[in-house]
């Protein structure tokens, strides 16, 4: 392999990794805090991508502007979904383990609801729009400008979220809820507000990931499951509920995917799965997870 190929594989892996990292961080906080393994995560990404496509092609709205519209919208949707569906489910569940199982199934129900609404609105044909496709030179290899912007936004949002969780008062409440939701509730943290909010933040990240994705790749209504799977692998890689684990894991997976894709592109998804299974068996709590 020439050095140019190596640079291209690694940099494009990092560029994809940004979106993976965002998607995984969303999934990991939804599970880590709200205890919902959101199998419909990828569908939220798809809807955000389609919305961005619609805004761009119909109203000529810059994708970065539509990210600013989409993000609070998804936050609200996520908040509402948790407040109505998952809060009811949590109150009715006989045990936390039962809630986890049931919430996974309900999330699977949402997968069908969201996917089929998207099919009714946007149909099943993949589409793309072109924005800032001009090239940038990185270490002697040309990359599309939209890829680089997507990575920058992903990193900025990831860092901002990390700072928010570690520095703000609300972030402290979230971290307390990760450790032990029941005790956090007893310590005066309003669990019925924090959990829906965290779920909403997870949806927000899915929304932004979808916007960034639509800038670089064609959008297909059926691609949601792939991103859910990628996020699941990343989350298992970094440890369920670990925010930095999700962030770093996203980039690792991006590079792995890029290397495998270079060798045999049809095996990319299976390689992710092989990685997931090996990891689950070798380190059931994830690379950065606490045992």
């Amino acid at each position, binding site marked *: 392999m020439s050095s140019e190929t190596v640079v291209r594989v690694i940099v494009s892996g990092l560029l994809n990794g940004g979106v993976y990292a965002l998607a995984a961080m969303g999934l990991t906080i939804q599970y880590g805090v709200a205890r919902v393994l959101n199998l419909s995560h990828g569908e939220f990404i798809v809807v955000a991508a389609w919305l961005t496509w619609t805004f761009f092609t119909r109203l000529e709205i810059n994708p970065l502007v539509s990210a600013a519209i989409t993000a609070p919208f998804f936050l609200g949707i996520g908040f509402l979904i948790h407040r109505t569906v998952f809060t009811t489910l949590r109150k009715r569940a006989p045990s936390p383990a039962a809630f986890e199982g049931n919430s*996974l199934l309900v999330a699977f*129900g949402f997968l*069908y609801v969201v996917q089929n*609404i998207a099919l009714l609105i946007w149909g099943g044909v993949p589409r793309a729009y072109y924005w800032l496709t001009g090239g940038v030179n990185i270490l002697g290899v040309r990359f599309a400008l939209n890829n680089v912007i997507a990575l920058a936004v992903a990193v900025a949002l990831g860092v901002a979220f990390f700072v928010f969780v570690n520095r703000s008062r609300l972030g402290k409440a979230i971290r307390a809820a990760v450790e032990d939701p029941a005790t956090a509730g007893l310590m005066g943290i309003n669990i019925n507000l924090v959990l829906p909010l965290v779920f909403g933040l997870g949806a927000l990240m899915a929304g932004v990931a979808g916007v960034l994705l639509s800038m670089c790749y064609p959008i297909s209504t059926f691609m949601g499951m792939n991103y859910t799977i990628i996020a699941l692998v990343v989350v298992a890689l970094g440890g369920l509920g670990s925010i930095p684990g999700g962030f770093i894991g996203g980039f690792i997976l991006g590079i792995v995917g890029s290397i495998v894709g270079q060798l045999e592109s049809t095996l990319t998804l299976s390689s992710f*799965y092989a990685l*997931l*299974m090996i990891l689950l068996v070798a380190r*059931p709590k994830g690379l950065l997870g606490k045992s």
Partner: protein
Amino acid sequence: MDISKFTSRKFLSVAGFILAILAFLAIFPLYGSNSEVGVGVIILMYVILTVSWVMFSGSTGYMSLAVAGFFGIGQYVAAFLYPRDPGPLLPLPAVIIAGGLASFVFALVVGLVTLRLKGMYFAIFTFGFAVFLGSIMQYYELQIRGRRGINVFPISNQTAFYILIVVVVLTLLTAYLIRRSRLGLAMQSIGENEDAAAHMGVNTTMVKVMTFAISAFFMGVVGAIMAPKWQSVDYSSAFLLLYSFMPVLMAIFGGMRELYGPVIGAVIFAYTERTLRLQFPYYYMLAFGIALILIIIYLPGGLTGLVPTLKDKLGGVIARLRKGGQ
């Protein structure tokens, strides 16, 4: 042997009921149209998948999402051993048993590997298992074999229907016997408190792996029957994720406390799926999602879980009416 057990009123009525259903099923293909028998085949397929899912997950509490994986393995065994092109390599019954055995062996390996995983991690792993197999077969078909899909030597709807009835009976019998055996008790104790079960001397590893593999055997068997019925196998239809979730939904909808709960759930759901899905594909799947959400929130005990509640309420009403009458 105490013969009065078999002449009691309850036993006779249950046995009579089962015989009546079997008699109906036996003559149904003779009178039903081909498409009606096709619907019957799908219903029986889901009954087996659901009952075998409940066999392991219902009592141990480990949520397996690997149904699609084992079902797909059975289909591919049929595709390799019962192909259309050179013609069948083995007689159909042997192929069906081979499909079950292949799933059984895979399940033993997966079970041994995933033993340490608890709760969600087990669900994620099994979920991944089906997708992994699907993408491996995608690679095999597109890159190695060079053509999507494998044609399978066809069997008629009628043949599939009769074979499936036999398998339904065997599956229900196995599930019933497991429930009544020490193995069933051991599984239940694992579901309630695994650590306590281990301390009481239950070999939890053996129990989990064995029942996981037995339930996978039946899933593989159905796969090997359905592939010749569908006449072809390809990577995307064989490992459809829906096959992992449908049995879970059907079992929850029917209720898992009694053995007939999953059967009822499977019959109702499979029937509505067959009749509505073709007419309104998007709306059907949308409604499926909403139904899944509502059932899990509002009907956690399933339909059969409602029976004791209704009995209590109705019983109360009847008692009051009687009192009022006196």
